């Protein structure tokens, strides 16, 4: 079930992405509304991160197109913010928490110009939002996984964008932090921002997201939570026998869950 919207924030038409000739995303076709907290769900290897990277122009697209705010990516970069997976960088890099969060302001600063008081203020505000203000001067190599994740989210906030794409921001984050970050994201969507989150925990997804995208190489569903979260669609996404109401937690425990085999 794919529900389309008028004047979408993000429109993807017939998107196909392949690595070394083998497609990892087939014919994804969807449109997303503004001001919603949107979750991308799917099993491991379903192409969730690939979809985000293709939207951000980080990997080449084999077919189809992506439109953001009805424009090309290059025209609207300053309105889009990105949280990469935490493991994508070397945290041993010589930088402080403040240095990394300030990087979020570099896009608007432009080439050659140096960040000043204004940028520092933005960075401090963003650190406060994620509850990391006490760690401003700490070197990033001294942070725990959850703290690193919050620094990345603060950096994305510092971009002051309208659309946020987050790749597994809750990986390795404890429950208290997850709840706090979800509340922050809900405040942002209430203020009209659109937040798209790659997520793998179905249970918390049901609690927080307004709109859900289900992906498993193909697009299985995209629409408001109430309409797309059905046993049939979840089974199509994750495969196997899935009794949504009673066995949600079982799915999470099932480590080697392969929908292609069942």
């Amino acid at each position: 079930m794919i529900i389309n919207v008028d004047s979408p924030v993000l429109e993807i038409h017939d998107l196909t992405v392949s690595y070394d000739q083998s497609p990892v995303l087939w014919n994804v076709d969807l449109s997303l509304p503004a001001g919603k907290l949107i979750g991308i769900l799917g099993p491991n290897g379903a192409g969730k991160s690939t979809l985000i990277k293709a939207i951000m122009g980080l990997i080449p697209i084999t077919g189809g197109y992506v439109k953001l705010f009805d424009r090309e990516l290059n025209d609207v970069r300053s309105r889009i913010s990105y949280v990469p997976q935490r493991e994508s960088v070397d945290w041993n890099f010589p930088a402080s928490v403040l240095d990394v969060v300030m990087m979020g302001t570099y896009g608007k600063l432009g080439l050659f110009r140096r960040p000043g008081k204004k940028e520092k203020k933005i960075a401090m505000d963003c650190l406060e939002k994620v509850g990391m203000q006490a760690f401003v001067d700490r070197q990033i190599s001294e942070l725990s996984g959850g703290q690193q994740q919050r620094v990345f989210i603060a950096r994305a906030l510092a971009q002051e964008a309208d659309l946020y794409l987050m790749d597994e921001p809750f990986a390795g984050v404890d429950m208290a932090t997850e709840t706090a970050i979800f509340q922050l994201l809900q405040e942002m969507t209430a203020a009209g921002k659109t937040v798209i989150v790659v997520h793998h925990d179905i249970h918390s997804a049901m609690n927080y997201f307004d709109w859900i995208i289900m992906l498993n190489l193909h697009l299985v569903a995209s629409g408001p939570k109430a309409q797309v979260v059905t046993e049939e669609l979840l089974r199509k996404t994750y495969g196997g026998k899935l009794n949504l109401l009673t066995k949600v937690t079982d799915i999470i425990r099932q480590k080697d869950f392969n929908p292609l085999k069942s």
Partner: protein
Amino acid sequence: MSFDQNAFLIIITASIISISCGLLGVFMMLRKMSMTGDAISHAVLPGIVIGFFVSGSQRGLEVIIGAGILGILATLIIDWLKNKAKVQLDASIGITFTLLFAIGIILINMLAYKVDLDQECVLYGEIAYLPIDLWITKAGFSMGPRITYLAVLNLVLVSGFIFLLYKELTLTSFDENFGLVIGLPAGAINLALMSMVSYTTVSSFEAVGAILVVALLVVPPATAFLWTKKLTSLIKLTCALGIFIAIAGYYMAYLVDSSIAGMMVAVAGVIFLGSAFVKSIKPNWIFGTSSSIKPLEN
């Protein structure tokens, strides 16, 4: 040891070269591209020979342009092999620079009767000849040692480059994808850095040689990184180490009557090994930064 003008000039020049190399080396190290620096310093050889052949002198601008082009070419070949041909990074570096270096050696031999250039000069350099290699103006007036001028010009350009692009270089070194996402020309910045490395290699090869330049690119930043986890301190410490190895290298070479550049690199290597040893036996050493503090939670 009384004041010796020649010694002073040699130490100053060697310090300047060490600082230029160290500044670039910090960013090469943070990008995990120290070995690419090594590759570039060898791969520029055919560029030097062709430039030399075209201009007929090793002072020509053609030499620097030729080397710069070869340096960028080497970077592009390495990237292409790694990304498109799916060759491992270390293998693509090894293949690229040995091939280009071999072409350089062949060219030197083929053109040997036409140009006054030999492998020894390019590979090892000799900073001790610096005081007699003067820049003579057309009016016959001596301006002082030519290589010192080259080194100063190089340092001005390198520090200007890093000053201007400090924030971009830092961001793309830490998280290149994020740089691309916010619209920074990450590819162009990377190539600009590689060009600066090529140019620095050529500018320094007469003094310290193409091989020892690699040590100046790699060793001082790597040593400094053992002691600090702050970028500004890392850069300062790298520069300080560069000056120290120039002074220590000169006087130790003087004592044992040997190669100055060789001794500089040997001193740098010993400092690095010593630092690594101290760090490994005493993680909470008093000079260490807060890097030894453990994360609050896991």
